[in-house]
């Protein structure tokens, strides 16, 4: 929690030097008022101007009426994690007006809807009232749309006062409304009227403004769920089952938006996939696992509560050796928790999920490009290993917009794994003394060959089951057979270490200590490393991208006096897993973990590590 800013009168405005492309704007609105569009347009306009920018939506679990905030951070240096204070506030919600002011830095700026009649308790800030109602009234908008377009007023006023390129705003409108001219025009009319009003009536008294930057070519702006869904589209997903849940719904919805166009069979023009909204997550998992067993690239997307329901089915898929991909877009648990807030709290659940001895390949995308890449690669790993692959994203990465590189086309052909169709089986039998067994390890890597329903070879069929079975898929309760099979599966899973994405290593000459983190916390950690360096502390950084751990992790632990494991959960779940995997380095591992529902900030990381290092 931030302590309220102390109010001392603003003086000498003119003396303040301009602050360019390096501040945070928070828009405070009421949920359901349509502000998402306005905020998205501001964000995209800044992005179009080449400015490194991120947008974080802090929203309630509510459809209409509760307060919601949207923070846009501009950072010349490219720091795109969340920060805890605001330089500029756009206040549209009377209910949170006074509370919001607590976050505004001294010298900050307040734009507010002038119908909010509250005494402003601070004299150390610059205020700009906006006659929202008046501008909307004059703009000739149908009465039923007035509330909705009211949010476009602040887009115009803020753009004018901060020097945001109005052409960039117009382009953002076109992208948002997908070229629908009527919608573009009516919104533009308000934005333009508001900008004109501000130009004529407001005198610039603050130092904040934006300037276009020579952007690195071809960047994209996208949310992680859409990126992951597109990855799945290019990975050739064939069946996706889901049940609505925030923050995962937009993943399946993105599949539904992009797959119909992109996945038309080049020969028949028909769809090469099916998306099924199941009756619950048990069924979603069952559908995906049935499809995976039958040879489809199958997936389900969900969040914690739904992921919990999938546990029994995933245990079956692990043991019956069925490829399937499950995306868990994490939110804050336990229980329904904070359903619209972000966390990395499902890690140990995913890792240990299921009764009996199980193991899962877990992928940990850290940005939108990795969402895309893991979107397709997960299928290759799942089919190669004939096992579930779990992808843990989170609300911050999944639902917020992030800048990324252009997506790279998959650089490897699809790996469909060891599948035997009719001729393959015929050949296999000829080469193996007429013997094929569904769970028979002939290559010595623990990975057996599978056949798929529809195979008309009379020797192809087998009966899959979750009960004990031998190499030929026959029911068995024999102690040795049980143990032999389970050990082979463990051996099979060892191959994962060569298939999963390796961690990303960033070093600094002479650094003695390290940070290990994963997923959406990357931007905050990048910034924290630089801030710590300013304090004289050089830190190496290993960002994990998958479980099981690969060789690089042990090497990193070996090479550092101690290592901070930074994550967004209460118990330090990755810290726990590392301690288990590397007991010899357990004393080097230090947990830096917390969860309050909000994305990680660099300041928090710096404070914690500095304190633990005894700095300051």
């Amino acid at each position, binding site marked *: 929690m931030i302590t309220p800013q102390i109010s001392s009168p603003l003086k000498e405005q003119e003396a303040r030097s301009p602050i360019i492309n390096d501040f945070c704007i928070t828009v405070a609105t009421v949920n359901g008022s349509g502000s998402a569009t306005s905020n998205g347009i501001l964000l995209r306009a800044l992005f179009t101007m080449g400015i490194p920018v991120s947008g974080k939506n802090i929203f309630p679990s509510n459809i209409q009426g509760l307060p919601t905030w949207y923070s846009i951070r501009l950072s010349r240096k490219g720091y795109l994690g969340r920060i805890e204070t605001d330089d500029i506030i756009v206040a549209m919600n009377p209910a949170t007006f006074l509370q919001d002011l607590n976050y505004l830095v001294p010298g900050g700026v307040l734009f507010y809807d002038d119908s909010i009649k509250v005494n402003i308790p601070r004299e150390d800030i610059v205020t700009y009232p906006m006659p929202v109602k008046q501008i909307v009234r004059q703009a000739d908008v149908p009465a039923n749309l007035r509330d909705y377009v009211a949010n476009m007023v602040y887009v115009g006023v803020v753009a004018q006062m901060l020097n945001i390129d109005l052409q960039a705003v117009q382009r953002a409108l076109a992208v948002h409304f997908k070229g629908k001219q009527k919608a573009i025009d009516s919104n533009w009319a308000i934005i333009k009227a508001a900008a004109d009003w501000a130009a004529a009536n407001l005198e610039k008294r603050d130092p904040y403004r934006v300037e276009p930057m020579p952007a690195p070519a*071809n960047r994209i702006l996208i949310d992680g769920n859409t990126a992951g869904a597109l990855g799945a589209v290019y990975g050739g997903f064939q069946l996706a089952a889901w049940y609505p849940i925030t923050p995962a719904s937009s993943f399946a919805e993105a599949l539904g938006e992009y797959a119909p166009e992109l996945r038309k069979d080049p020969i028949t023009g028909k769809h090469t996939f099916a998306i099924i909204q199941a009756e619950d997550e048990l069924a979603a998992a069952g559908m995906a*696992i049935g499809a995976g067993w039958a040879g489809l690239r199958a997936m389900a997307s969900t969040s914690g509560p739904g992921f919990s329901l999938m546990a029994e089915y995933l245990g079956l898929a692990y043991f019956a050796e069925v490829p399937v991909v499950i995306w868990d877009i994490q939110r804050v648990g336990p229980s329904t928790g904070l359903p619209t807030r972000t966390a990395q709290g499902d890690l140990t659940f995913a890792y240990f999920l299921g009764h009996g001895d199980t193991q899962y390949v877990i992928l940990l995308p850290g940005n939108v490009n990795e969402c895309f890449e893991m979107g397709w690669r997960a299928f290759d790993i799942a089919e190669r290993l004939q096992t579930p692959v779990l992808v843990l994203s989170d609300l911050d990465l999944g639902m917020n917009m992030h800048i990324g590189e252009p997506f790279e086309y998959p650089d490897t052909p*699809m790996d469909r794994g060891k599948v035997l169709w009719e001729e393959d089986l015929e050949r296999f039998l000829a080469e193996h003394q007429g013997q094929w067994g569904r769970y028979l390890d002939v290559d010595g890597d623990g990975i057996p060959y599978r056949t798929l329903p529809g195979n008309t070879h009379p020797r192809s069929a087998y009966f899959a089951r979750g009960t004990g079975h031998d190499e030929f898929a026959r029911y068995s309760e024999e102690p040795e057979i049980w143990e032999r099979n389970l050990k082979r599966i463990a051996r099979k899973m060892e191959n994962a270490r060569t298939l999963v994405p390796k961690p990303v290593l960033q070093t600094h000459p002479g650094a003695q200590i390290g940070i290990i983190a994963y997923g959406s916390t990357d931007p905050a950690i990048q910034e924290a490393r630089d801030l710590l360096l300013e304090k004289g502390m050089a830190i190496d950084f290993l960002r994990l991208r998958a479980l099981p751990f690969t060789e690089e992790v042990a090497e990193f632990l070996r090479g550092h006096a101690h290592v901070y494991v930074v994550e967004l959960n209460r118990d330090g779940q990755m810290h726990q897993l590392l301690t288990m995997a590397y007991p010899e380095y357990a004393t080097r591992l230090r947990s830096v973990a917390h969860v309050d529902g909000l994305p990680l900030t660099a300041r928090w990381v710096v404070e914690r590590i500095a304190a633990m290092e005894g700095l300051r």
Partner: protein
Amino acid sequence: MMITQETSSPRVQANRVGLTRSDYRGLPSTLCQGCGHNAIANQIISAMYELDVVPEKVVKFSGIGCSSKSPTYFLSRSFGFNGLHGRMPSLALGALFADMSLKGIGVSGDGDTASIGMGQFKHLVRRNLPMMYIVENNGVYGLTKGQFSATAEKGLSLKRQGINPYMPIDICLEALVANATFVARSFAGDPKQVKEILKAAFSHRGIAVIDIISPCVTFHNQENSLHSYAWGKDHEMPLHDITFVPPREEIYIEDFEEGTVREVELHDGSVIMLKKLDHDYDPTNLFEALRVLEEAKQNNWLITGIIYVNPQAPTIFDAYDLPAEPLNRLTEDRLRPPRESLEHLNQIFGA
């Protein structure tokens, strides 16, 4: 491509696809002697043999229970998946999308379907997945040794369980109100009827729910109970005699006298002929179906026969625009969009 089939002994019994009845067999049953489930497995074998089914075109599914074990006792040459307790519907649904030319046979129990699996069962029904869904209904949990199931009648007394205090669930009624397109009930002790219903159900394009009273001789075969052999034999009231005629034999239809036979043409052109017993039962009339079930319930009758059929209803596959070729045989060139399309997307998401 042609694969040399295992040649079956060229006996007279070879059916039209060159297979004998034994080609449809499974492993020996490990269920109790006299268990109703065994009788049903045998009728599945006969029905598939008589329908000239190619075993490789069938996929078997089940949940968990004694009943759910039985898919290993028939059609060894078919793929199968014995899934989770109560969750067979979702497994089957996902799997059958892989190849729409395959036909599913699901075997479940009353616990598997009407207790833990009720939700998935009803959603499978409303989606009209083309498969035959057999409930081997014995009123108890056999595999966990004789607890009451959700179809056990109120007041039933079982060893170590006491008296069942709850009202039973009627699987046929549940299927009907969930918009099932084929609903039948039979009795494991009536093999001829079981077989004819199985044949009709297998030819139905859509979900075919068959509730077969299948006595558990070990935990629940009290003479006075609805799920026992004795009760079933005494109270069975066939709605009609069923004769199933595959399309190639359509000529026989003329042999039946007008007015005594009700014909229902199934999707593949085959015909079920229902011979009237005490009233001219019309299985395409949903109101009639609901009425006879309710009437039977109130009178403690065991109504058997094809209770409802709607051969015209679209299936789940009709809701998707999929190629006729099996999805699971599509190769990368048909699954991965071309490189240019990604460049286009990068432009859309770009500045």
